[in-house]
């Protein structure tokens, strides 16, 4: 088999280069937005508003399973290397990845992930997955389960609320993008 045959027989990739780069750029945007865009709220999990919005957007504009997870893992690696996060690089990497997986899982369970309720649910689950990683790491290092669970009741509520708000923000952004013809622009490039 010569090289030309290999060219014609090469299997198409699951994600095109454009989709990979788009998700990579959105990952970079996630990292930057987490640092730059702060809401004046002193409650745990409020960073999930923009974070979950971007992950939901990533999953809808690249409508393939794992799109959100890919953007999340990439942003986690970038954030860890940049020293973002207050509990170390391992926590940062796993938190980012878990958030993406959470969004992907919810979007994989429904047919139309661009609906408002689905976006909000995906955001809530993604943000809760982030909290889940923190809880698991705390349990792993041996902090008594009672302390961990008691200390995480209030954050569980706020993470859910802010995650859902983030998912809804993602829905609003997607609506605005649709009105602006962004999806037609994307379709031309696929």
């Amino acid at each position, binding site marked *: 088999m010569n090289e030309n045959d290999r060219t014609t027989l090469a299997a198409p990739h699951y994600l095109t280069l454009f989709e990979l780069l788009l998700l990579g750029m959105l990952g970079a945007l996630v990292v*930057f937005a987490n640092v730059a865009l702060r809401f004046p709220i002193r409650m745990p999990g409020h960073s999930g508003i923009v974070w979950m919005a971007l992950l939901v957007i990533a999953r809808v504009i690249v409508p393939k399973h794992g799109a959100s997870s890919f953007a999340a893992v990439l942003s986690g690696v970038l954030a860890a290397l940049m020293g973002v996060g207050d509990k170390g690089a391992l926590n940062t990497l796993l938190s980012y990845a878990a958030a993406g997986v959470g969004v992907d899982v919810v979007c994989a369970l429904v047919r139309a992930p661009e609906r408002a309720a689905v976006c909000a649910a995906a955001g809530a689950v993604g943000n809760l997955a982030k909290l889940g990683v923190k809880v698991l790491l705390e349990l792993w290092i041996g902090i008594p389960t009672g302390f961990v669970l008691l200390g995480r009741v209030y954050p569980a509520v706020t993470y859910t609320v802010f995650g859902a708000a983030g998912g809804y923000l993602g829905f609003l952004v997607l609506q605005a993008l649709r009105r602006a013809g962004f999806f037609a622009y994307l379709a031309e490039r696929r």
Partner: protein
Amino acid sequence: MLSLAASLAVMLPLGKLAVFVSCFGALVVAGGLTRPVYDHLRRIRVLVCVLFALDWLFIGLGFAVLITLRLGLLVTAFTLLCATTTPEEVRQVFERCGMPRRLAFTFATAYRSLDLVETEWHGILEAQRARGIMGPASADPPWSGWRRRLGDAVALVVPAVVLVAQRAWQVTEAAAARGFDAPVRRPSVGPRLASLDHLLLAGTAGLFIALYVVQ
């Protein structure tokens, strides 16, 4: 691997963990990494103090010290990696470990785009402020300020996503023009491991085995 080994060492009992933390601290000092490690520890000082007090109060001093050491080690373990490795080196390691070139390229592009994203973000912010969409938040009471910022976020994120997509398309075209996705490519030669790298890898492997045996 050294950072991963340090993360796994949190499972050691107190005595052995104290020895490990001492060695880790010596390595941090010898490597001139005290500043980033101190910064990480400073960020969790409140959590550590509260946990230490609760653990001491309800369980005992030994347990409080154990949890504090474990938390400190977990938080700072990957500082060694992050403070000594550039993203370009990480990309090369990814490729050497067999990661597809497209993924490594995406990682490198995303990292290089951070500055661009920041520039464009500030540009969008200024443009929206000029249109009167974004205003100073400090003038508002906290709750209405928060609600307004949620609305402002839509005005910020929409152009940011569009600009990011345009940038991704430009890079895709540039890469395709250079034959990036062509099936026949000449392999690029990355940096070779030096003898010190081999020594460090062997030492880390030994540390892994030692931790496994001790555990």
